[in-house]
């Protein structure tokens, strides 16, 4: 005789096993992109392997939230949550693993993440203490719960790790909003230097090139970008170039620096003069209005994740935008593949990270 309670218990187990997501797994890499999607407010997400046409093929559920920031090196691609202390790590063979920074899921979300020597260097949202905004720099080996930490008084917008030093660029935000840079020795966990630039309100992006830090700065509420070159030893600005454009990112390809806006890819020299400007075409049709969600560089290829303002619902898949590949320095668009996810995930998909196929090569 089977008791009613036993049936209920079995049903509960079945439901739980069906709802809960594994903390590790593997997704086929083939020669196409992988899409990782997540929801802003809930721990519902998933990972989808696509075909070369962008069609979703294999998918798995993930218990991840608001995966917003990403970084990669030769071995790992990591994504971290802005509103949840969760990290998804993908290896070159397609193995994915969910984990938490600080080995503590209740700690705060992430502001920036970088990879160096198989370790995650991350800035975590620390809130205002004693009327000063403070975040936490965490240094944690991938696959290991051991970590070291260091408090820094900055809201991070950009993070560079070079030769054992973390260069954190952003804004002091509270009580005053000034652009700021802090350097931290990530072995000793000590702040080396910090510099505040009252003339600017924030640094938004930064990249290391040939012994200098190049950054995008902004003033007040203006969206116009001020390109800046910073001496990494003294943290002084050595060159600036005011532009009318709102640059979204700076990338370095083959030693050459490029500033990218929604309209163009501009080559920038060491004195911050703009030499070549290649127009960038994002949406092709009027219904494809959208925005650049992410920019990645692999070799000579610029990988742009372009998201539509309005997803195009369909059956069996919903179209969210395109992965646009541009060759540098030619500026020629090489391919444009759709970002398609199963319509069954419509209610869950908010943020999408594209792990480009180039990472798995």
């Amino acid at each position, binding site marked *: 005789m089977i008791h009613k309670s036993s049936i209920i218990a079995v049903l509960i187990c079945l439901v739980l096993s069906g709802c809960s997501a594994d903390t590790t797994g593997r997704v086929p890499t083939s020669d196409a992109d992988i899409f990782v999607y997540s929801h802003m*407010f809930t721990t519902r997400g998933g990972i989808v392997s696509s075909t070369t046409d962008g069609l979703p093929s294999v998918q798995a559920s993930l218990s991840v*939230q608001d995966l917003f920031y990403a970084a990669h090196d030769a071995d790992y691609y990591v994504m971290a949550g802005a509103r949840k202390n969760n990290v998804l790590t993908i290896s070159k063979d397609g193995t994915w693993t969910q984990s938490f920074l600080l080995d503590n899921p209740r700690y705060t979300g992430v502001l920036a993440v970088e990879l160096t020597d198989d370790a995650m260097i991350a800035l975590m949202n620390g809130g*205002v203490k004693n009327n000063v905004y403070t975040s936490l720099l965490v240094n944690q080996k991938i696959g290991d719960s051991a970590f070291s930490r260091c408090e820094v008084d900055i809201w991070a917008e950009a993070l560079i790790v070079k030769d054992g030093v973390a260069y954190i660029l952003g804004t002091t935000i509270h009580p005053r909003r000034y652009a700021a840079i802090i350097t931290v020795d990530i072995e000793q966990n000590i702040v080396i230097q910090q510099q505040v630039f009252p003339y600017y309100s*924030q640094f938004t992006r930064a990249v290391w090139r040939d012994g200098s830090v190049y950054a995008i700065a902004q003033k007040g*509420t203006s*969206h116009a970008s001020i390109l800046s070159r910073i001496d990494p030893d003294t943290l002084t600005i050595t060159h600036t170039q005011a532009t009318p454009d709102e640059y979204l990112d700076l990338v370095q390809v083959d030693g050459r620096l490029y500033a990218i806006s929604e309209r163009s890819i501009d080559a920038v020299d060491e004195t911050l003069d703009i030499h070549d400007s290649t127009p960038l075409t994002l949406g092709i049709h009027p219904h494809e209005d959208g925005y650049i969600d992410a920019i990645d560089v692999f070799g000579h290829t610029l990988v742009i994740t372009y998201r539509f303002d309005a*997803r195009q619902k369909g059956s069996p898949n919903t179209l969210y935008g395109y992965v646009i590949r541009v060759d540098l320095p030619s500026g020629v668009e090489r391919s444009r593949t759709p970002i398609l996810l199963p319509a069954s995930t419509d209610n869950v998909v908010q943020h999408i990270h594209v792990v480009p196929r180039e990472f798995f090569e």
Partner: protein
Amino acid sequence: MKRLSITLLSLIVVSMSMTPYAQADDSPTDGSNLPQYSEQEVELYKQVYRDDQKLIAAINANMDSLVTEGKLVISIPEKEDVTPHRGSMGSWGDILVSLITDSGSVAFAGHAAIVSMDNHITVESFAESFSPIGLDGVQYYTNSWNKSGALLVRPYDATATMYTTAATFAQDKVGLPYNWNFFNKSTTSKYYCSQLVWQAWLAAGIDTEAGSIPNGVIAPADLVNSSNTYIAKKID
């Protein structure tokens, strides 16, 4: 016609049994050990919650026309050419609303935020137990709002100075605790999410509750339904 009539809508009864009831007095709480409200207070909040659900249903039913109406509003030039960046939405002083997700309130559904002077950063108030970063009260968050279901709400006829006043007001409140007494919306020592946004814009001279349900609580849906605001953008 912005204001919605709720009288013609069918009654949506929402059980509050799944919602944690918090203390009704003004003492701060860490949100992790919440005492019960009195029965009388529970009944009050149940009524407010029902009103809120009806209002949300009305907004959703009229969403297309509200969005169309909002597109006709000419904003100030400084607000028009903002490029969304890394999933952010809006610019300084803008109101961001989700009618889906809770911030810890027992009086209403949804969540509201205001963009700080830095477009990449929002100011939001969550109860600690609901906070996605585990911090109680008013805090800075990453502006990751360019997401499905999010609404960008702006007051009519707001000037750049007003947007600055609202954003700065909210930033000045960072660090204050969550306000569990949802009827006490005038206090300046603790804040729930939509109370913070409402007070920030009140400081700038615009009442973003005007024209909505006058039930003593300022809900995220009130910010959308106000006769003084419009939907500038909705993410599908």
